[in-house]
């Protein structure tokens, strides 16, 4: 009797890549549902458009590169990129914004660097930043909470590219961070701004609930060990520290730490964006440092940079630093002397 041979171990325990990616998608569901609840059908439409665009561009590039289609389309990584980007886009931006961003993320940021596992930069954030720089108007036009647009109108707005006349006003809003930045520039104090109509209990109306939903999903990912806890801990920690210092110095000129922590992009970035394993640091201490770097850069860009939010830039900048961080934060090997 002949037996098959293979190298040990002969066992496999734990999730596969496609299971990991699916878990990320599951973890996004409560957050996406909340976004749909507060900002309308547009969010869902963008997720659908992004998924289609991602799978299509992934398939085309895989075919061009002569890679097995089923194996790599099935791994779910393209869908994760698509969803991550879609959830960060304004709910009623035109369809080509999503398509362009996702295609750029998959083709340029992912595959031109070697595909799954080889990309140095977070693809979703590359796509996001390209859109933000190229189409600042579309990318900063957010609907207010409960825009009251039905499904059919949502489809029409997104695919025609220009909203129906009577809806135009309803669709121009600003994110809470944006509002804070512009109104601080106008000389208003934080208290006045936060008491404005667009704000809820702590952060922006609706936004704070979306943040909570993504926090729940993110904690689940950490619990499942899909996301490394050190990255959100480092990021939120340094963000809290820096914003705390500035808030203590002058509470009227700087938003409070909890405002920063519970802003949508902080939570979303900390648990879903910065934790992308491919582009983040991989050593335990390195991840803490990486997270802390993202948090600090986020704060600096938000408060002193040209953009109202800085998570995307902060993540990309720290992506550059990840290999170096890894090199200098290697763990002590078993049996090595403690220095």
């Amino acid at each position, binding site marked *: 009797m002949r037996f098959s041979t293979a*190298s*040990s171990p002969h066992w496999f325990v734990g999730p596969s890549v496609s299971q990991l990616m699916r878990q990320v998608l599951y973890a996004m569901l409560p957050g996406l549902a909340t976004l749909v609840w507060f900002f309308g059908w547009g969010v869902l439409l963008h997720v659908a458009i992004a998924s289609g665009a991602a799978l299509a561009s992934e398939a085309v590039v895989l075919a061009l590169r002569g890679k097995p289609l089923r*194996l790599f389309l099935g791994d779910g990584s393209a869908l994760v990129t698509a969803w991550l980007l879609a959830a960060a886009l304004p709910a009623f931006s035109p369809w080509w914004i999503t398509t362009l961003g996702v295609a750029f993320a998959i083709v340029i940021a992912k595959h031109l660097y070697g595909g799954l*596992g080889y990309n140095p930069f977070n693809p979703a954030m590359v796509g996001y930043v390209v859109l933000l720089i190229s189409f600042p108007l579309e990318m900063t036009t957010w609907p207010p909470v409960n825009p009251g647009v039905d499904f059919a109108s949502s489809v029409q707005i997104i695919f025609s590219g220009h909203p129906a006349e009577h809806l135009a006003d309803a669709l121009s809003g600003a994110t809470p961070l944006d509002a804070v930045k512009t109104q601080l520039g106008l000389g208003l104090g934080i208290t006045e701004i936060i008491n404005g109509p667009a704000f809820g209990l702590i952060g922006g109306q609706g936004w704070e609930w979306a943040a909570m939903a993504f926090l729940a999903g993110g904690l689940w990912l950490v619990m499942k060990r899909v996301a490394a806890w050190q990255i959100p801990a480092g990021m939120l920690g340094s963000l809290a520290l820096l914003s705390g210092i500035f808030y203590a110095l002058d509470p009227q000129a700087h938003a409070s730490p909890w405002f920063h922590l519970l802003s949508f992009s902080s939570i979303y970035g900390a648990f879903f964006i910065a934790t992308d394993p491919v582009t983040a640091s991989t*050593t335990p201490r390195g991840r803490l440092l990486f997270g802390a770097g993202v948090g600090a850069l986020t704060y600096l860009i938000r408060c002193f940079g040209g953009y109202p939010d800085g998570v995307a830039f902060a993540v990309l900048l720290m992506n550059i630093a990840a290999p170096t961080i890894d090199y200098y934060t290697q763990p002590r090997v*078993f049996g090595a002397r403690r220095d």
Partner: protein
Amino acid sequence: MAFIPSPGPSWRFHGGLRLASHAAESIGQAVRPAALPARLIAPLQQHIGSPAKPVAQVGESVRKGQLLAQSDGYISAAVHAPSSGVIVAIEDRPIAHPSGLSAPCLILDTDGRDDWADALPPWPDYLSVAPVELRQRVRQAGIVGLGGAAFPTAVKLNPGANTQPRWLILNGAECEPYITCDDRLMRERAADLINGARIMSYILGVEEVLIGVEDNKPQAIEALQAALRGIDTRNPAIDLRPVPTIYPAGGEKQLIKVLTGLEVPTHGLPNEIGVVCQNVGTAVSVHDAVVHGRPLISRYVTVTGRGVAHPSVLDARIGTLVGELVQQCGGYTRQAERLIIGGPMMGFAIPDDQVPIVKGCNCILVAGADELAPSQPAMPCIRCGACADVCPADLLPQQLYWHARAKDLDKTQEYHLFDCIECGCCSAVCPSHIPLVQYYRFAKTEIAARERERQQSDVARRRHEFRLERLEREKQEKETKLRKRREALQNKEPPAAPKDSTQDAVAAAIARAKAKKAGQASTPPPTESQPVAKPDADTESAIISTDQDR
């Protein structure tokens, strides 16, 4: 030595995995003696070190326990006849090796009488025997580590004159899934095991014995406790310690950490931190060898997996074919897919079952397809770090993987490749199904090959240099000889000259030669500014003087 914390049961090692034990399949019934096969095949090398040297002749009738091959060198182990019969051949036979390799074996046709040779003198009262003699007995009995590594036990029991170990650790963790032979052994031979431990502690002169058993073996722990109740456990102090069931708690370094809190230094040995670690089965063999004068000729083997009809633990003679043992457990089932020597994490798969078991063989796992990792194509590494989270050596497996893949062997060593114990945790959790351990083995063998090559080229270079030197020397010798002969001829040339003038002529010739030599030695190589024409003796000396003036 560094600060030693007092031992306690609460230390942990980094990483590891909680694995399903799969002990239930084979642990149910008592150990059965395996049937005596018609033919036994005993490889000369069943241990780490040099192969044993045969002392039995082909055609010789031997009795059970008779020495067939003696240890060759310090790190080696003897091989004894597992039963009585006739040596029919000493030749290469396939052994349990993943590539189906053959190696020299003694082939013994048994006669069924199974009668013992004149035994070594039994020493029930071992305390009256000198430790060095007991160690010699362990060596004579061919005892090796029965946990799997098969390192000669006598060597481990001799840590050297300058090191006095503090602890003897008995490894009863048996952390790999499916394997149950140590569990059964601890249940059935607890008293002998404890006695073996006492003998070894006497040989080593240690006063503390720690027995580590994974806490998923409550019956083994109970049996050992019962055995300990009857005896004085003060000298040596014997401490039975259940350890958390986390694979690989039975790894030598990991168990030492769990029991003592100490880490074996990288590239170091346990005795550097005052520990000698032995498997529980080894302790029983030491007991048998000392108290009964019996060499190591059989061992407990777990035969299990979904590919076996009736999984059980057998007491099998060394040299029994794997296939025969499976037959004695009801044969293969339809699910039988892979034949593994050892456990699912570190065991190696063999293509064929017509190979003998050896001293280090603790388990025959016939895995069904559904018990194995599904064969999936490896995906690219997504740098998730799951491997680093579970690595008990605290390595960065994925960095090692990148560098091993790129054949950047220096870098792999920089990332501590040789601290990898190949436990398989990283591969088992890799979501991309990358056979990480295979890459590390590849890198390790490449480095070993490179090292060998470097040594060979060193030897070759030294040889070459030596040859050049020799040629040069021979050339010079030849020249001197020639010159002497020429001089002798010159001396003879003026035939009728008076004796004085001959001597003058000789003196003059020597002076000339000397001057010439001196001139050659001190004159710098001619340049354009210097006279190029070959000077006669006078100008030559003039040049010399001008040289000196300068």
